[in-house]
């Protein structure tokens, strides 16, 4: 009956997934997409002091307290009391868990000096103890902390290997989710090659020191039957336990907002389509020292708080008190917002810890405070280390903030003499809105100019604006741009005055010119009139002359006729008669 339904299953495309047991360890369950394989053994290996035991213990404690799965902690190197003391610092109380029947601790002491071997034996005692502990509380999880210690206690290696193989089989058969810790060997993952028995999941922990800063890293070497993040993930052990940084999220699929938030500077908003930044975007302001980057950040902080939202401000250079004092000088009073709980100013030294620690600290602050805006000032202070690491870290931080729809505002200090755009190459590609503040030295003045280098998803202004810090905050004035130069400050003022004078002069000249033209026109017109009059007179005279000629002609003809008739009139009469 069950078979046909099982056969139909693939059609619905729901394939059975490998069952996983959540560890409850921050970040680890994300990397492994659910935790360690349920009911199977997992090996945690690494060098001394890399945190294997901490990982294992937290797995048990979280299982017992958060997932209702009691556990057995079998230690081979530390007594129960020692173990309890060690993990107390992480806030775990094993004695309490044991009293509440959620945990059984069994310390297996192996003393090679007091053991003599004669003939064949097996490790049934270990199985019996384990079974007894599991039965006592109905355990679902087991930790064997450095099982390999048995190799130092017994000489018959072949027998031990057979027994360990049997042990893993035994654990699997009982469906116990097990973590086995193992010391790293030379050129091998574990000193005694335990990984060959545990084929399901192998996790490698590493603790290395790079330029005096220690970083812990984790890698899932193998996870049979499941996909997993294959990178090295930094992790930390602090007073809240073990936490793996949930690194770059595997996809770029975070939700985006088209909501806009004001930058707190009216003119800057104008440059960004008049609306400001996108909510949940990342903003980078880069510039040289003293160019006003922090002030832009303070404006954003003030604006956020004004709207009743929360802002987390992390400074690596100034103490909170100093930030408040300095921002007051440009008319931004942050103190009331701090009191109201809308603004949280945090400051610590960048050299205080490794990159991962910074990242984790920010993570934790964000998780607990849940801000709408996070300001990191300046992010470049973290860049002392390996730039690749910094890049990876910032990417993780940005990813993290983006998935939470938190607006990230970073400032970056550019070093003098370097191209402004070059220094941030490592992070610029991760940034949505990039503002550049540059110094312009001219005529004995140092002025600032701001422009929007890029701003994804908006038609940002291409203008360079003069960046002026006044008692009432930052103002962005239009600058004089012409002749290939950008003028600011008094140079801009004098240039503007000069332009005004030139304009007046030009207007004056134009007026004069048009006057002259008018005069010329008038003179010409007068001339034309005079000529017309002259012409009229001439015409009159000529017409009269013509009339007189015609009269004379007529009189002459009459006289001639009279004269002809007087002479006989023949010719004339002939003519007349004809």
């Amino acid at each position, binding site marked *: 009956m069950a078979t046909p339904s099982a056969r139909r299953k693939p059609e619905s495309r729901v394939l059975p997934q490998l069952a996983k047991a959540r560890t409850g360890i921050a970040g680890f369950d994300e990397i492994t997409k659910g935790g360690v394989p349920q009911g199977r053994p997992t090996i945690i290996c690494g060098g001394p002091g890399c945190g294997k035991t901490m990982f294992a213990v937290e797995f048990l404690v979280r299982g017992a307290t958060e997932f209702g799965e009691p556990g057995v902690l079998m230690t081979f190197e530390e007594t129960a009391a020692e173990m309890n003391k060690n993990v107390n610092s992480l806030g775990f109380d094993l004695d309490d868990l044991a009293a509440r029947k959620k945990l059984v601790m*069994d310390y*297996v*002491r*192996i*003393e090679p000096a*007091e*053991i*003599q*071997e*004669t*003939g*064949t*034996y*097996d*490790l*049934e*005692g*270990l199985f*019996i*103890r384990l*079974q*007894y502990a599991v039965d006592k509380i109905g355990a679902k999880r087991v930790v064997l902390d450095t099982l390999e210690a*048995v190799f130092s*206690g*017994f000489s018959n290696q072949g027998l031990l290997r057979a027994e360990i193989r049997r042990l893993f089989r035994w654990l699997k058969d009982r469906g116990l989710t097990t973590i086995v810790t193992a010391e790293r060997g030379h050129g091998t993952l574990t000193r005694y090659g335990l990984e060959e028995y545990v084929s399901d999941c192998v996790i490698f922990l590493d603790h290395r020191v790079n330029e005096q800063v220690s970083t812990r890293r984790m890698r899932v070497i193998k996870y049979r039957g499941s996909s997993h993040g294959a990178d090295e993930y930094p992790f930390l052990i602090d007073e809240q336990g073990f936490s793996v940084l949930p690194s770059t999220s595997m996809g770029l699929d975070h939700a985006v907002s088209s909501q806009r938030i004001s930058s707190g500077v009216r003119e800057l908003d104008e440059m960004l389509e008049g609306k400001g930044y996108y909510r949940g975007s990342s903003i980078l302001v880069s510039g040289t020292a003293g160019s006003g980057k922090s002030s832009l950040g303070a404006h954003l902080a003030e604006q956020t708080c004004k709207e009743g939202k929360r802002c987390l401000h992390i400074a690596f250079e100034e103490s909170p008190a100093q930030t408040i004092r300095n921002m007051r000088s440009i008319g931004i009073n942050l103190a009331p917002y701090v009191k109201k709980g809308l603004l949280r100013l945090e400051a610590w030294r960048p050299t205080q810890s490794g990159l991962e620690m910074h990242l984790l600290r920010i993570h934790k602050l964000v998780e607990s405070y849940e801000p709408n805006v996070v300001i990191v000032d300046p992010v470049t202070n973290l860049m002392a280390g390996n730039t690749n690491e910094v890049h990876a870290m910032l990417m993780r931080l940005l990813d993290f903030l983006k998935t939470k729809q938190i607006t990230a505002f970073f400032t970056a200090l550019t070093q003098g003499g370097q191209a402004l755009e070059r220094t941030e190459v490592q992070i610029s590609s991760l940034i949505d809105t990039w503002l550049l503040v540059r110094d312009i030295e001219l005529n004995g003045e140092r002025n600032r100019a701001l422009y929007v280098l890029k701003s994804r998803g908006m038609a940002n202004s291409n203008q360079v604006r003069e960046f002026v810090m006044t008692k009432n905050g930052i103002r962005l004035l239009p600058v004089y741009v012409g002749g290939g130069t950008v003028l600011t400050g008094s140079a801009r003022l004098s240039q503007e005055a000069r332009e005004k004078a030139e304009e007046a002069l030009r207007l004056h000249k134009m007026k004069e010119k048009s006057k002259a033209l008018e005069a010329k026109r008038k003179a010409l017109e007068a001339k034309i009139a005079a000529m017309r009059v002259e012409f009229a007179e001439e015409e009159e005279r000529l017409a009269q002359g013509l009339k007189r000629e015609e009269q004379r002609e007529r009189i002459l003809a009459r006289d001639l006729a009279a004269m002809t008739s007087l002479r006989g009139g023949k010719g004339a009469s002939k003519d007349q008669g004809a």
Partner: protein
Amino acid sequence: MKKRPGKIDGQFIELKLYVAGQTPKSLAALANLKKICNEHLEGKYKLHVIDLVKSPQLAQGDQILAIPTLVRNLPVPIRKIIGDLSDVERVMVGLNLVDIGV
């Protein structure tokens, strides 16, 4: 303490044999041990056989891992011999009986 207790510094030997059920190894160990005791420790020892299948809670106390394990609690220091006890010489050495001239 019965006839000549003084032979091992006047002390009694207390032995515990841990086994897990009636496995061939356990049975062999028990047989071998009985033979050794009868030959060398007649009347000077006390033997408990503990079956961990029946009482698993006892495994922790003596830190038993391997089965079978023979534990000599007295005289101190504690000695443990694991295996089927087939090598008599080694058992004697292991129980520290050779030095004291048994």
